[in-house]
């Protein structure tokens, strides 16, 4: 049962229920007896063990929460939503959270602190419904030291105000854990919390909108020729007021354009912000001169409208995914505390205080926090998330254990060899790929077009002034020069990309494809090579396909094997144990397990051996040559070989057609950390000229991407584990596959719901279409510019023409961008509302 090894459990969610077994073949009869759902968490209860107030509970933990809430007058929790709780692990160590009271940890976790009152923000991945919000905000009724609590549902966060004397931080954490909301405390939490930048953009839009509306009111009388009625006094007054109102627009709202234009001039690159800034300067300068000298009314309404529309484009593109982190490194994966052995006993210490030579105790399902040496006899380590190796490996006393592996089985002791930050895995982050920031906005489509555009506009403007000067009309030439700059101000051009890419991003997010930002669409469109990870990407990490080779087992034999395997914590055993429901009539006696070899016991009067070929030989069981190769579990009854189970990770649905389609259009490669035993299976899927690489270390994967890039390919890397982190970072597009909301995913450009993996081809097609739409949008705005610049170069541009041309061109481009992108999404089948949704508010994240 590999699902218990998913990274989710470290995010604080109590271990998920076993994944529903898929693809079972053979004789096993997995139909479980009907169970009542737990009144608290909704999971099936074992027959009537825990009952209270005529409600059934699946475990003592859930029952305890129920009675706690009932006694505190919070029984309402169960009427707000049906079975709203999450399963609670009752067996937590009492000092589990003690490390939180360590002043250095406390200081870094608290948002605010003084003698009397403190405030902390915890990330609680278990928050999933209205009842959770209600319960957490009534937390003060459960503990006298807790004051106000405030939940942010979208971010799955709770801010708790509490009195540190009455309730130390450890008590708050333990209270939350006790009612089923275990705080996720990873190493990343210790990094100083980044204060979210307050939305300046919103304020800038507000100012621009305010000025735009008012200036328009002042301009309208002049456009409509009411000048004669209102008289010259008002003409002057309106001009001055407009000028005053436009000042904050230029200074505050358009501030980012000045800065960015100045930066690109200094770097000697031409971004679109340069002509925008030039246009704004020309607009304001010309208007100010006209108004001050009493010549005319200026173009201030156009100026304010321009800035207003430009900022709207920006805010449209700035779609953020609050619940997803695109830049998580290993720190989000490692826990905040571990159990250290001291001469006086055990203590929970913060992982950052771990020293070389410390003795650690690691329990089933816990993470090895640093490179260490094994002190206990044997240990079974699951490295699937770290190296991609899907089979757990056996290590013996004295062996070197790499950080990041998850221990399976009984508790073991380790001695740390390296600090956390210098471990094998975390040293990957020292690669230069991580050192340079992602350059986002430089070589974008918009910037490439704007370079040509800017040169052209400047050429036309200069030509206009020279032409009129030669014709002997220098003042008209000057007007033509500024007019060209004014009318060419590339509003429509600047809006085409934000609205197209922003729409694409939104539509994709609805289907569970979350992009870091809109520019990722452009990057995806350029991809011509795709590298895929195997475990967790092409195969589902949580489900295994189990097959029996040999003469069919009788139901009785299956039950006996399942009963035996139920005694072991090895993932294979747990998977096999699911083949038959647990039955109490089968007595398992004389059970013994040798880690990395197998199990033996007497079940129902027969002696059974389950394990590797070597294990059976050790017990003098002859094995016929015909048994299937590695990754199989051999079975012997009463000293006679009976057959073998093979366990393969289940291929995600439709992966075969996906690989077939992609193989024809892209350079395709498989890079897996796993061993070669599935080479044949994937050679068939990938086709003849496929590149299949197995046994790849994280560094190898990174190097492979680099080699592809040096051959001129634009590479998309699709992976899911920490071992792919380097490759995801190096790839031109890094796609992290996640099984559900809130799961750890390494830093990437795209976070992809695993159900959307088969649609990878359509996503690339859609992105290509979206960039094509951007180009068409550029053409439309270019057409408007040709008209506008012709008028301007002739020196007959009036504010009225400007005031009409500018919004019309912008509106056309925006409507086209949004409409065409939506149509394209429909064409590629990416708009169905039934798809997975990583951002959905109502989705139950419990399972």
């Amino acid at each position, binding site marked *: 049962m590999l699902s218990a090894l998913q990274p989710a459990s470290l995010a604080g969610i109590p271990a998920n229920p076993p994944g529903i077994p898929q693809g079972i073949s053979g004789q096993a009869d997995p139909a479980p007896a009907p169970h009542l759902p737990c009144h608290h968490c909704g999971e099936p209860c074992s027959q009537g063990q825990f009952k209270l107030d005529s409600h059934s509970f699946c475990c003592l933990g859930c029952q305890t929460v129920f009675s706690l809430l009932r006694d*505190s*007058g919070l029984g*309402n929790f169960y009427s*707000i939503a049906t079975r709203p709780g999450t399963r609670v692990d009752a067996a937590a160590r009492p000092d589990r959270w003690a490390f939180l009271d360590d002043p250095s940890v406390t200081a870094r976790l608290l*948002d*605010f602190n003084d003698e009397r*009152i403190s*405030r902390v923000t915890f990330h609680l991945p278990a928050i999933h419904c*209205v*009842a959770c*919000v*209600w319960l957490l*905000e009534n937390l*003060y*009724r*459960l*503990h*006298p030291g*807790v*004051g*106000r609590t*405030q*939940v*942010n*549902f*979208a*971010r799955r966060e709770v801010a708790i*105000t*509490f*009195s540190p004397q*009455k309730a130390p931080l450890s008590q708050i954490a333990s209270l939350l854990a006790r009612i089923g909301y275990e705080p996720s405390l990873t190493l990343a939490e210790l990094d100083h919390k980044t204060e*979210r930048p*307050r*939305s300046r953009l*919103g*304020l800038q839009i*507000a*100012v621009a909108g*305010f000025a735009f*509306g*008012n200036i328009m*009111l002042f301009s309208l009388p002049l456009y409509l020729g009411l000048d004669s*009625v*209102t*008289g010259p006094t*008002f003409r002057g*007054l309106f001009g001055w*007021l407009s000028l005053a109102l436009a000042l904050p627009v230029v200074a505050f709202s358009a501030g980012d354009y000045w800065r960015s234009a100045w930066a690109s001039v200094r770097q000697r690159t031409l971004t679109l912000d340069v002509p925008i800034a030039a246009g704004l300067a020309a607009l304001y300068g010309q208007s100010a001169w006209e108004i001050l000298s009493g010549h005319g009314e200026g173009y201030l309404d156009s100026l304010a409208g321009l800035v207003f529309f430009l900022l709207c484009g920006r805010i449209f593109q700035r779609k953020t995914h609050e619940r997803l982190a695109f830049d998580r490194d290993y720190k989000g994966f490692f826990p905040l505390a571990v159990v250290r052995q001291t001469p006086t006993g055990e203590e929970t210490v913060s992982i950052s205080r771990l020293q070389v030579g410390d003795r650690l105790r690691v329990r089933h399902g816990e993470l090895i926090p640093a490179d260490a040496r094994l002190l206990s006899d044997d240990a079974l380590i699951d490295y699937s998330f770290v190296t991609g190796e899907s089979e757990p490996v056996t290590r013996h006393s004295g062996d070197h254990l790499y950080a990041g592996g998850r221990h399976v089985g009984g508790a073991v002791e380790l001695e740390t060899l390296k600090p956390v930050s210098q471990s094998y895995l975390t040293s990957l982050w020292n690669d230069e790929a991580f050192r340079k920031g992602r350059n986002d906005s430089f070589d974008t489509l918009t910037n490439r077009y704007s370079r040509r555009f800017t040169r052209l506009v400047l050429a036309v403007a200069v030509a206009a002034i020279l032409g009129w000067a030669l014709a002997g009309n220098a003042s008209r030439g000057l007007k033509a020069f500024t007019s060209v700059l004014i009318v060419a101000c590339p509003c429509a051009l600047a809006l085409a990309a934000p609205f197209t890419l922003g729409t694409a991003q939104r539509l994709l997010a609805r289907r569970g494809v979350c992009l870091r930002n809109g520019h990722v669409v452009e990057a995806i469109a350029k991809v011509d090579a795709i590298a895929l990870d195997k475990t967790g990407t092409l195969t589902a990490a949580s489900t295994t396909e189990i097959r029996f080779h040999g003469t069919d087992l009788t139901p009785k034999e299956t039950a006996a094997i399942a009963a035996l395997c139920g005694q072991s914590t090895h993932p294979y055993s747990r998977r096999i144990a699911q083949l038959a429901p647990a039955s109490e009539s089968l007595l398992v006696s004389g059970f013994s397990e040798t880690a990395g070899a197998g199990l033996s016991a007497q079940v129902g009067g027969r002696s059974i051996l389950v394990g590797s070929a070597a294990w059976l030989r050790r017990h003098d069981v002859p094995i016929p040559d015909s048994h299937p190769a590695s990754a199989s579990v051999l079975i012997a009854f009463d000293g006679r070989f009976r057959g073998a189970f093979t366990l393969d990770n289940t291929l995600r649905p439709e992966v075969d057609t996906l690989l077939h389609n992609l193989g024809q259009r892209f350079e395709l490669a498989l890079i897996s950390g796993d061993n070669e035993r599935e080479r044949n299976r994937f050679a068939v899927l990938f086709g003849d000229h496929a590149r299949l690489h197995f046994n790849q270390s994280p560094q190898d994967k990174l190097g492979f991407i680099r080699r592809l890039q040096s051959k001129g390919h634009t590479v998309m890397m699709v992976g899911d584990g920490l071992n792919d982190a380097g490759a995801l970072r190096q790839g031109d597009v890094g796609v992290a596959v996640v099984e559900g909301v809130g799961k750890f995913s390494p830093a990437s450009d795209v976070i992809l719901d695993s159900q959307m993996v088969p649609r990878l081809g359509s996503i690339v097609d859609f992105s290509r279409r979206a960039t094509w739409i951007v180009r068409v949008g550029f053409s439309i705005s270019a057409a408007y510019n040709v008209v506008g610049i012709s008028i301007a170069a002739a020196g007959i541009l009036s504010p009225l023409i400007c005031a009409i041309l500018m919004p019309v061109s912008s509106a056309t481009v925006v409507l086209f961008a949004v409409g065409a992108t939506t149509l394209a999404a429909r064409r590629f089948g990416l708009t169905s509302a039934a798809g997975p949704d990583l951002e959905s*508010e109502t989705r139950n994240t419990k399972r």
Partner: protein
Amino acid sequence: MEVLVLLIAASLALAGTVLAVFFWATRTGQFDDTTTPAMRILTDDPPAPSTLSPTLPQKTQDP
């Protein structure tokens, strides 16, 4: 027509007030979380009489 001056002043003052209120709302975090309040309103009930009433001031302390 001189009444226009008054009207312009009034309209500018009104719009300016709205703008100021918007600035205040943004600065004090009224738009920070737009999801949870909508859920909260569904479950709000009068606080049950409880001996475990909070002893802390019911205000947010911004760091």
